[in-house]
């Protein structure tokens, strides 16, 4: 039940494009044809947790609007994170001013909300220039806030573009802050990595390619990219070969001689399981679905394809653990208040 709100100053800063790319799998190139958002739009995302995404059009000032009076409690009462999009290619001074206003407002009335600033549309910029802009935005925001007496605000900054994986990585970090007991998840993955000698393991939300947890080794974009593309490959193959119903005769034939078992008995695992061996130093990558929404993806150690059987057993155990984990947290979700407190916890 995490909630997110997107806002940004400029009308063309790319908020709606971000939503479409991340939550609706629209190809980045297609966003060119999108119309600008004129109203507040609410999107809900059914995943392992329920997310609501509110898209605020750039031209509406929600705190200070003479013609409308917004029910701020209805909007922000349940929001866990506010995402503020800044167009890196544009003059963003105005946007920063409004960001500061909003941040101060939120910190007074809704201190549990974390603010995530996306410095967006960086695809055409050089690496040097990117970090320069990021530093500039960070400095100007934090300086101003501390001048006004707001220190240690829960605010973070990300460089993003819809044309590469950066937007998904940024969202991953945003979502991770909204997940109750993230530490437990990370601990499970870390211990799996240690036992099976994986290089890196991620727990992906399959629909959005956001990773909701990874093991405790340092973050590494290239590993994220290959794992998330692997999820893509699996999704595509599943669509082509797994999304249509086979005939009854087909099933009857398969369940007859020589196996004489129902199909459910013939398979080893009810969810998707997959492994790909890279030619380079024979490094396998494995994927295992945990449930309808989540998949575990890991980069394995070179040459460990032969030990797949053992690894699968270990993965089985972790998958079982993850399933239990989500059963418990989902049950806990019904008492909403508790969850909100937990989301706030780390930031204060």
């Amino acid at each position, binding site marked *: 039940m995490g909630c997110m709100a997107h806002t940004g100053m400029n009308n063309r800063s790319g908020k709606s494009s971000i939503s479409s790319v991340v939550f609706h799998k629209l190809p980045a190139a297609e966003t060119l044809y999108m119309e600008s958002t004129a109203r507040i739009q609410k999107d809900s995302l059914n995943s392992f947790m329920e997310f609501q995404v509110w898209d605020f059009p750039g031209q509406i000032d929600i705190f200070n609007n003479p013609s409308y009076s917004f029910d701020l409690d209805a909007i922000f009462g349940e929001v866990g994170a506010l995402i503020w999009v800044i167009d890196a290619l544009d003059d963003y001074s105005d946007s920063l001013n409004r960001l500061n206003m909003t941040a101060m407002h939120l910190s007074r009335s809704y201190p549990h909300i974390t603010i995530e600033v996306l410095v967006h549309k960086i695809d055409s910029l050089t690496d040097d220039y990117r970090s320069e802009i990021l530093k500039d935005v960070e400095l100007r925001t934090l300086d101003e806030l501390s001048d006004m007496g707001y220190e240690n605000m829960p605010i973070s900054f990300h460089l993003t573009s819809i044309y590469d994986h950066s937007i998904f990585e940024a969202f991953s970090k945003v979502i991770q802050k909204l997940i109750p007991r993230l530490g437990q998840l990370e601990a499970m993955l870390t211990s799996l990595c240690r036992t099976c000698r994986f290089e890196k393991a991620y727990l992906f939300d399959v629909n959005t390619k956001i990773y909701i947890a990874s093991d405790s080794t340092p973050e590494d974009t290239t590993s994220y990219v290959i794992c998330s593309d692997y999820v893509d490959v699996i999704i595509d193959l599943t669509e082509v070969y*797994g999304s249509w119903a086979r005939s009854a005769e087909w099933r009857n034939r398969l369940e007859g001689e020589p196996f004489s078992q129902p199909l459910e008995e013939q398979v080893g695992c009810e969810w998707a399981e997959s492994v790909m061996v890279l030619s380079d130093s024979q490094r396998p990558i494995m994927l295992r679905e945990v449930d309808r929404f989540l998949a575990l993806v890991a980069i394995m150690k070179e040459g460990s394809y032969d030990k797949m059987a053992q690894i699968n057993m270990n993965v089985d155990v972790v998958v079982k653990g993850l399933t239990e984990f989500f059963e418990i947290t989902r049950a806990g979700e019904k008492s909403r208040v508790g969850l909100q407190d937990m989301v706030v916890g780390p930031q204060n």
Partner: protein
Amino acid sequence: MSDFEVGTVGAPAGGPGPGPAALAQLKKVKKQKVLLMGKSGSGKSSMRSIIFSNYVAKDTRRLGATIDIDLSHVKFLGNLTLNLWDCGGQEAFMENYLSQQRSHVFSNVGVLIYVFDIKSGEWERDLSTYVNIISALVQYSRDAQVFVLIHKMDLVARNHRETDFEAAVTAVKRKTAEACAIVRRLRLDTTTTDPSSSSSQTTLTSPHQQQQQQQPNSSSETTTTQELDIDVQYFATSIWDQSLYKAWASIIHDLVPNLPIIETQLASLGQAIDADEILLFERTSFLVVSKWTSQEGDNNPYGDRFERMSNILKAWKHTCSSFTGTPRNAEQFSDFEYRMGTSFSMFVTKFTTNTFILVCLPPGEARFNSAKLNVAAARPWFKYLDGPVVQPTGMPGTSQMYGMAGPGGYGGYSTMGESSGAGVGET
């Protein structure tokens, strides 16, 4: 091009009867002259780089204009070489091809790929160049296959794509007929003794060509008017999606040597391992060389799945290449397994030296594992087909290899040696 022999154009299917001669024929490296033409900036070199050199679509922005003709030899499978003539499209070059280099460029052409830019500002001019090119082609290489690619479809808004494509095709069709009419008139003027080699070629190759083209040729006479109509295949393409793979897979499909045999072998393999679908990919381009689908697999509603698989796997290769830091053209993965619960299982694995195989199976661990082993066991009979030119080591050896195919394998021979009923397996 001096070593280009007309006799090999129609290669295996119509080759001489069975026996050692046929086997030698099977292993002969087939060469095909492929002309890639179209206006400057229409995207010829870009698509070539994507298909054969594993460029990513956005990397093609770095390519400069092609000057004159960029000749490249692409080894496709073990026994097919594509002599790819990437012809720079600037007007000065085009005129040159049509005048001074006319016979050099247009003789012995196996395939002409003509690329139109859908967003070109000067459509009429493009069409008139096309007419000139087609008439030159018909004059020098009567039997060349023509593929027209309406390119850069990504620049057209999605809901207009179909109508724009249809409009372009209609225009090009009209111009093709016009080009044929021009040549027809020329033929009638100059009457009989046509000195160009084209007439003799036609008589030589027409029996083979008949199988490859839907359009029937009368094999004896070349100057009758109605047969001058050429058969053109049209594709809407874009380097940003799978449409490029669809077009190129059909282009190379007819060129692959020994195709009937490969297809029969694939079918018997598919039946043996109880698969739903088998696709055979060329190693570097990941174009679908051959495919087999079971009756149940035919119910698959995704008609575009073949080019889609090429696209998915090639995109995956790019990801791997940036992850491992190995060159784009290197082989990136050797094995892939995927079991989707009670829905299906599949694997993709390196098959022969030049191919990868994708097998889609019904679910079940036992079925999956035995299929993997069986596919590995079947490697030798395909290796022989796409391997480099090797002298056959007498009949016993070869028949033994084919013996592994079971009855289906023998069937393959009798379909290819059509002039006689005797299959090789019987010797």
